[in-house]
C-alpha cells in the first residue's frame, strides 16, 4: 500500500476527471500543490496574471467545450480575487471547479496570515462548496465537485484545501465514492405534461419559442431546430441562447429583450403562447413584468424547478433536461401532426416576416464615420460560422449580439447574468485552449479591455492567436448611453478619452497591433489579423457617439422600443 500526498492525490483525481488545463496562480498556501504540478505530465497548468482571469478562463473553456473548467488560487487574496469569476459562472450556470488553498486546519478561525473564509464568502455564488478537513475525504470531494458542477443545472463548485491536508499522506488507491443523498436532478420530463404541452402548442395560433442558455448547455440545439421546423414556430433567444438556433433561419427572430430586435419583442408582445426552454425570464428580456406577454400562456421547460414560476406565471411546467424533454416533445407533436396535418401557422409566419422586413437591425450608412455594426457585419462575412466570438460588456457586447448572426452553439460567449466587464478576453483564452483549431475573437470596448489587458501576456506566452476587435469609442459607452437618454446628457465619469495607445500596449506584450480609422480598411485589417499566428488587437476608432438601438428603457414594457433615429435627442 503506497501512500501519496494530498496534493498528488488531488492531481490524480483531476486526471481521472479528464482535466486538461488548470488556470491558476500560485501562493504560499498552495505551494504543495504547485510542487506536485512541477512533475505533472498530463494536466497543463496555465499561469494567468490575475486570479479573476483564471476563473473567467475556466468559464470560457467550459462554454466553448461543454467540459468543466478548472481554476486554482492561493488562500486569502488569491481566493477573493476569484470571486468575480465564480459569481459570473454562477449567474450563467457554467460548470467550473475552483480550487483554493487554505491555512492549516489548526489555524482556521484565528485570522492567521492570508486567511479568508472562502467557503463562507462563496456560499451564495457557488452551486456547492467544500472545506476539506481531512485528506481521506479529498478523493470523494473532488469526484462530487465535478459531478455537481456538470450535472443538473450546472454551476461553479469550490474546494478549499488547507495546506496540512495538501501535505498529509493518503493511500494511493483510496476509493472515491459519490454520496449525495439530497442531489437528484430531474432529467426526464413528465410525459403527461409533455403530451399536454404538445397539444397546446399544436392548437396555438401565434406561438413562439424562447430559447436560452439551458438549450446550449444541455446540447439540445439539434432537437430545438428540429422541433421548431417541425412545428413551424419562430424562435427568439436570450443573450445566452444565441447559437441555440441558427440566426439566419427564416424562423429566427434573433435576440429579444432590452437590446433585442424589434421583431423579437413584437413577437413576444403579440404571441399567444410562449414555449420557454432553458430560460429564466430575466428582467433584461421581459422588461416591465406586469406588461410582459399579456395575451400569452407560458409553457416553461427547465431543469431547475426553482426557475419555474419565479418570475412569470406558468400554464404548463415541465421540469427536465432540455434535450430530453425536446426529444419527447418532438415525438408527441409528431403524433398529433401526423393525425391532423400541419398546424395553420402561415398567417403568423407572414406577420413575422413582415416585421423582419420592416424593422431590420441597422445603423446609418450615409456617413463616413466608422460604425461598429459595419465592423461586426464584416467580421461575420469573413469568418461565418467558423469562429468563437467572446465579448466584453457594454455596447460592444450588444452590437456583437445584434450583428453577429450565430448558427452554432458554443460559439457566442458572453457574460449574461453578471454583466462582467473584463470577462471577454480571459474567456477567449479559455476558449482558445479548449478549441485550438478555431478562430477566437474578443469583441471589446476600451473600458473593459483595460480591466484585463495584463492577460495579453498569458496569450502571447502560450502562443494563442486570439484576435481582439476593439470597438474603441473613448467612452464607457453603455453608461454614457444611459446618461444621454435618461440623465440629461450629464456625462459623469464616462468620457474617458484615454491616453492609452492600444497598439503600443499590445506590442509591449509581444502581440501585434493594427489601427483602423476608416471604413475601407476594416476588411483588410480583419483578414490580415486572421493570418497572423499571434495575439492581434485591432484598434477600431469607431464613432464615439454611436448608441445601441433598439432599446427598451429600464422598467418599460418591451413593446415600447426606442429605435434608431427616433430616440430623444
Amino acid at each position: 500500500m503506497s501512500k501519496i500526498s494530498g496534493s498528488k492525490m488531488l492531481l490524480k483525481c483531476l486526471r481521472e476527471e479528464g482535466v486538461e488545463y488548470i488556470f491558476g496562480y500560485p501562493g504560499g498556501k498552495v505551494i504543495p500543490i504547485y510542487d506536485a504540478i512541477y512533475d505533472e505530465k498530463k494536466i497543463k497548468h496555465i499561469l494567468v496574471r490575475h486570479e479573476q482571469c483564471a476563473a473567467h478562463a475556466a468559464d470560457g473553456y467550459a462554454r466553448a467545450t461543454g467540459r468543466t473548467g478548472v481554476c486554482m488560487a492561493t488562500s486569502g487574496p488569491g481566493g477573493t480575487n476569484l470571486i468575480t469569476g465564480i459569481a459570473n459562472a454562477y449567474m450563467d450556470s457554467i460548470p467550473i471547479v475552483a480550487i483554493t488553498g487554505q491555512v492549516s486546519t489548526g489555524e482556521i478561525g484565528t485570522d492567521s496570515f492570508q486567511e479568508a473564509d472562502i467557503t463562507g464568502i462563496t456560499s451564495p455564488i457557488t452551486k456547492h462548496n467544500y472545506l476539506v478537513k481531512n485528506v481521506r475525504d479529498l478523493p470523494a470531494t473532488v469526484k462530487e465537485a465535478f459531478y455537481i458542477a456538470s450535472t443538473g443545472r450546472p454551476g461553479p463548485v469550490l474546494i478549499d484545501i488547507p495546506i496540512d491536508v495538501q501535505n498529509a499522506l493518503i493511500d494511493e488507491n483510496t476509493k472515491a465514492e459519490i454520496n449525495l443523498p439530497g442531489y437528484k436532478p430531474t432529467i426526464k420530463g413528465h410525459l403527461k405534461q409533455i403530451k399536454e404541452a404538445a397539444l397546446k402548442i399544436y392548437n396555438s395560433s401565434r406561438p413562439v419559442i424562447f430559447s436560452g442558455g439551458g438549450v446550449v448547455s444541455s446540447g439540445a440545439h439539434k432537437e430545438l431546430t428540429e422541433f421548431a421546423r417541425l412545428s413551424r414556430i419562430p424562435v427568439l433567444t436570450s443573450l445566452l441562447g444565441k447559437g441555440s438556433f441558427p440566426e439566419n433561419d427564416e424562423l429566427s427572430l434573433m435576440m429579444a429583450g432590452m437590446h433585442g430586435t424589434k421583431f423579437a419583442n413584437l413577437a413576444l408582445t403579440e404571441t399567444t403562447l410562449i414555449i420557454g426552454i432553458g430560460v429564466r425570464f430575466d428582467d433584461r428580456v421581459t422588461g416591465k413584468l406586469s406588461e410582459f406577454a399579456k395575451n400569452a400562456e407560458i409553457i416553461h421547460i427547465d431543469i431547475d424547478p426553482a426557475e419555474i414560476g419565479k418570475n412569470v406565471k406558468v400554464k404548463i411546467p415541465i421540469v427536465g433536461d432540455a434535450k430530453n424533454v425536446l426529444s419527447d416533445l418532438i415525438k408527441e407533436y409528431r403524433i398529433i401532426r401526423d393525425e391532423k396535418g400541419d398546424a395553420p401557422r402561415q398567417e403568423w409566419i407572414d406577420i413575422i416576416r413582415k416585421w423582419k422586413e420592416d424593422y431590420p437591425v441597422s445603423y446609418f450608412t450615409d456617413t463616413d464615420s466608422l460604425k461598429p455594426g459595419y465592423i461586426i457585419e464584416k467580421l461575420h462575412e469573413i469568418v461565418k460560422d467558423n469562429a468563437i466570438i467572446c465579448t466584453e460588456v457594454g455596447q460592444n457586447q450588444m452590437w456583437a449580439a445584434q450583428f453577429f448572426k450565430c448558427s452554432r452553439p458554443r460559439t457566442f460567449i458572453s457574460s449574461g447574468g453578471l454583466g462582467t466587464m473584463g470577462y471577454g478576453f480571459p474567456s477567449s483564452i479559455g476558449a482558445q485552449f479548449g478549441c485550438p483549431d478555431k478562430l477566437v475573437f474578443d469583441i471589446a470596448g476600451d473600458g473593459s479591455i483595460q480591466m484585463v489587458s495584463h492577460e495579453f501576456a498569458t496569450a502571447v506566452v502560450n502562443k494563442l492567436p486570439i484576435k481582439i476587435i476593439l470597438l474603441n469609442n473613448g467612452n464607457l459607452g453603455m453608461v454614457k448611453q444611459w446618461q444621454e437618454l435618461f440623465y440629461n446628457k450629464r456625462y459623469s465619469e464616462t468620457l474617458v478619452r484615454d491616453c492609452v495607445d492600444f497598439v503600443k500596449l499590445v506590442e509591449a506584450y509581444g502581440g501585434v497591433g493594427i489601427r483602423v480609422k476608416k471604413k475601407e480598411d476594416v476588411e483588410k485589417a480583419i483578414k490580415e489579423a486572421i493570418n497572423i499566428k499571434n495575439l492581434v488587437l485591432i484598434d477600431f476608432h469607431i464613432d464615439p457617439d454611436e448608441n445601441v438601438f433598439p432599446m427598451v428603457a429600464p422598467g418599460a414594457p418591451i413593446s415600447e422600443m426606442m429605435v434608431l433615429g427616433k430616440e430623444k435627442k
Partner: protein
Amino acid sequence: MNHIISVMVENKSGVLAKIAALFSRRGFNIESLAVGTTDDEKVSRITIVVNSDESSIEQITKQLHKLINVIKIQKLLPEHSVQRELVLIKVNTENKSRAEILEIGNIFRANVVDVTKGTIMLELTGNSSKISAFEELLKPYGILEFVRTGMIACSRGKKY
C-alpha cells in the same frame, strides 16, 4: 401567514449556515428555527417557521431543495401535525406571589424546575398560543428571564 417546514439535511458542518444564508439572501424572515439530530446520526432535522405568502413559500422550498446537503423537505400543515415549543420562565416571587404562580403553573401543567428565595422557574411545553397565554398570565408578577425554543413539529398518522 406562518408556514412550518421541516428540512432533513446531512449532518455536516456548515449546513445550517448555508440554510440561514439562503433565507436572508432571498429576503425571507425566519420566525423560529429548531435543529436537532434524528434517529439516523447522519441526518439532522431542521424545523423552520416562516411568515410569508403562498408563492414565496413555494419559491423558498424550491431554493432549499437546491442546496446539495438538503435531503428532504416537508411542509407541515397545522391541522395535520403536532407542534411543540419548550419554554423556561423565571418569575419573581418576592411579593409573596409564589402560591398564585404555582396555581397558574398547575393549570397549564407546567413543571417547577428551580426554586430559590425570590424566584421560581417553570418549564412548559405546548404550542405557540399556549405558551403565549402562559407568558401573558405571568407577566404581572415580573418575568426575570424567558427562554423559548424554536418550534418542532411532526406530521400526524402514518403519512411521512
